[in-house]
């Protein structure tokens, strides 16, 4: 039987928010911990660590996935987008803007997972019904809001996305 070398590490290169990062980690390093501990991107939150709560959801090649249910080593060469990659305080992404407008958060712990999940959802479904909006966030838990304002934020985010995609009337004078 093979002895396990507890100290065995591997070099892993993962592109996060457009920047390729290489770190030397143990194979058991979860992608969530890689993002938080190794890259110091603490916007991604870790709740249950078994895939139930959705707080750690990131976009992997554009698709929402649980970063606590992936190993960093499996994410080699993949494009990861975390909540930090979806906007800044001065230039918020449509979902972030919608959460502000609709009061879609209270403590904010679950919010990064909702923002990534909803970002992917409105790309796929630019004009969702309320029912589709509810279904889209059914895999994310929030213990503060009671979800009503998050549902509103999904619809509002889609609206903002459509507004931003439409060229302003009159167009660019230049």
């Amino acid at each position: 039987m093979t002895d396990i070398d507890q100290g065995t590490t591997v070099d892993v290169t993962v592109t996060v928010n457009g920047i390729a990062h290489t770190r030397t980690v143990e194979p058991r390093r979860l992608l969530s911990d890689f993002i938080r501990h190794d890259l110091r991107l603490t916007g991604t939150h870790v709740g249950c660590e078994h895939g139930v709560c959705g707080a750690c959801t990131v976009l992997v090649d554009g698709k929402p996935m649980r970063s606590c249910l992936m190993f960093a080593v499996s994410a080699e060469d993949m494009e990861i987008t975390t909540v930090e990659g979806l906007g800044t305080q001065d230039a918020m992404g449509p979902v972030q803007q919608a959460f502000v407008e609709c009061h879609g958060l209270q403590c904010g712990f679950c919010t990064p997972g909702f923002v990534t999940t909803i970002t992917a959802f409105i790309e796929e479904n630019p004009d969702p019904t309320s029912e589709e909006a509810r279904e889209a966030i059914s895999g994310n838990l929030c213990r503060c809001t009671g979800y009503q304002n998050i549902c509103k934020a999904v619809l509002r985010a889609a609206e903002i996305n459509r507004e931003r995609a439409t060229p302003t009337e009159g167009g660019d004078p230049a």
Partner: protein
Amino acid sequence: MKPAPFVHHGPRTLDEAVAVLGEVGHDGKVLAGGQSLIPVLNMRLAQPAHLVDINRVAGLDTVTVTDSHVRVGATVRHAELEKHDEAYAVLPLLRQALLCVAHPAIRNRGTTVGSIAHADAAGEMPSVLVLTQGVIEVVGPRGRREVAALEFFEGPLQTVLEADELVEAVRFARFAPGTRTAFLESARRSGDYAVAGVGVAVDVSTDSGEAVVTGARAAYVSVTDIPVVVDLTDAVAGQPVSSVWDGVDELVQAGIAPEADIHASSEYRRMLAAELTRRALTRATTEGTA
């Protein structure tokens, strides 16, 4: 809530995967989507010394539709199969059931073959495979073998798969033309483990000018240890598609053996399984055509 240390193997070809599994399979696990395995590792309910990560093995990520079946490779994600229009066109049951598998974020990573190899009694796709009378394609150091779905499952989380073997693909068999299907489940929260669930395949004949049911089969989630097919034909044959399916109870009850747990009593699951069966028959006969 962190996995114990393990050695990670990342084979790029099926031959390499088989070779490394032959070496370490006795103390290792195959990692595909990991949506069932990684929670188990995180909670240290299992501590395999080796993980054979097949995600980058070439050629396992395809869905093939033929006249007789839909073949799904080992690294095809639930979401890929769910959105595969050609597969849906010939076997709507796949999408009907996949929409009940956890949440979109889980379906984006988890694999259909992985959920079948995992053999959780609450898994949807083992029951779907059995209902279609599908086949599991197994590969290992002793070569390839095919196992009929009904012979694959031995108990909850137990299959005939040897420690050094790998499921390369599964084949969901297509139903005869005119078969209509539906998949329904009841869970405490949308996407959660089902308290009970059912997939039905209903044979409908329109030879007499009117749509008449000639047979029906059902497979269950969370109310049997291993997926079984319950033949409902005796209770439904000859009925119009507008039936309310009052006669199915006895056959359903005889075919299932639900256990009680924190979520529901055995009796409640029995009641639920029968009710879901009636609703699924109605949905299949009034909405679904295969």
